[in-house]
């Protein structure tokens, strides 16, 4: 049996060799003369091993860093008077998401991810921020003061049922109880209707009373009770048939205007 340290060293060595081989291949290919493209509208291929697009703005680990070129959000005043900006999540938001996750308590992480989780993997950060905004949408809430992420809600359309989507809502611990979850869920519902989704489903940790309450307030029905999890479903009423939920702002209108 190979000693674990030796195995790890061999893996690292092999990985470095593979990277070197790939880089040599890239250089050999780039040194070759290129034929002009017949289709001039096709974008040139990016370099191999350049910094991945989803990671480029994430170099700085400074907390509270605002994503570069992030779109402006809709300002919202929560019921305690605190202000947030709510906007779509984009690929440049990986640092914000990583920072937000790092500030979650152990319990909140477990509630959200149903397993003990110390960090988000780079693959997960990419998955959560590189969205098509059709089958996978996420709305983030930023503290209006320091620009840090304080909440996020997302839907991901079911692969086998385009009318349905799984949803999840996460609110930073010190921002819970202010109505931010309801605000995000209402706006996520609007976005889902725009994308043709008719119902939300949510798999929730059995102990997650905060999200259970949030879903019940959104007229969710409990469809499945299992060991460790609950599943809820929300029928999305078409916008023209729906009155604004109590305590929520009309989409696009700050609370103080109501």
């Amino acid at each position, binding site marked *: 049996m190979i000693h674990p340290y030796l195995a790890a060293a*061999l893996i690292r060595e092999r990985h470095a060799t593979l990277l070197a081989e790939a880089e040599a291949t890239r250089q050999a290919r780039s040194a070759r003369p290129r034929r002009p493209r017949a289709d001039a509208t096709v974008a040139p291929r990016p370099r191999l091993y350049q910094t991945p697009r989803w990671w480029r703005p994430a170099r700085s680990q400074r907390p509270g860093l605002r994503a570069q070129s992030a779109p402006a959000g809709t300002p919202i005043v929560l019921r305690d008077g605190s202000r947030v900006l709510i906007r779509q999540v984009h690929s440049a938001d990986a640092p914000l998401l990583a920072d937000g996750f790092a500030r979650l308590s152990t319990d909140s992480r477990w509630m959200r991810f149903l397993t003990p989780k110390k960090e988000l*993997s780079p*693959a997960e950060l990419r998955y959560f921020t590189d969205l098509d905004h059709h089958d996978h949408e996420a709305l983030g809430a930023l503290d209006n003061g320091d620009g840090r992420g304080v909440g996020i809600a997302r839907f991901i359309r079911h692969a086998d049922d385009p009318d349905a989507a799984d949803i999840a809502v996460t609110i930073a611990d010190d921002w819970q109880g202010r109505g931010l979850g309801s605000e995000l869920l209402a706006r996520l519902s609007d976005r889902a209707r725009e994308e043709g989704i008719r119902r939300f489903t949510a798999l929730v940790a059995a102990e997650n009373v905060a999200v259970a309450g949030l879903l019940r307030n959104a007229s969710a029905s409990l469809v499945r009770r299992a060991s460790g999890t609950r599943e809820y479903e929300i029928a999305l009423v078409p916008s023209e048939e729906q009155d604004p939920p109590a305590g929520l702002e009309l989409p696009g209108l700050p609370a103080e205007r109501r």
Partner: protein
Amino acid sequence: MTRHDGIACLDVLAAQLHARGWTACITMPAGRLTALSVQDPHDRAQWSDVIAAPGGATGDWWYWFSWAERIGPVHAPAAAAEVIIRALQRPMDGADLAGCEAAHGEGRSDVLRLCQ
């Protein structure tokens, strides 16, 4: 199905992932859901957790990403493994992948033997 059946489902999925060159190991934290930690041995940044839980009105068991996104029914573990790999595999910005894939293919058996 019981919790043990869920673990058996994760075990089947682990086998499917192993067959595709990924590492997968079951973790059973006390008092919490059993999860399958999956990782691409060629790129350690590509890892995540998968659980098995009932879903929908029928109560059929599904594989789920731990972020509460359903992957697929447990009776189709091969398809679930493909979905997991597609979701987690980082698309390399360089579109010219042939050389890199060939290099990884050559080293795959060695790396797998060490990681499993």
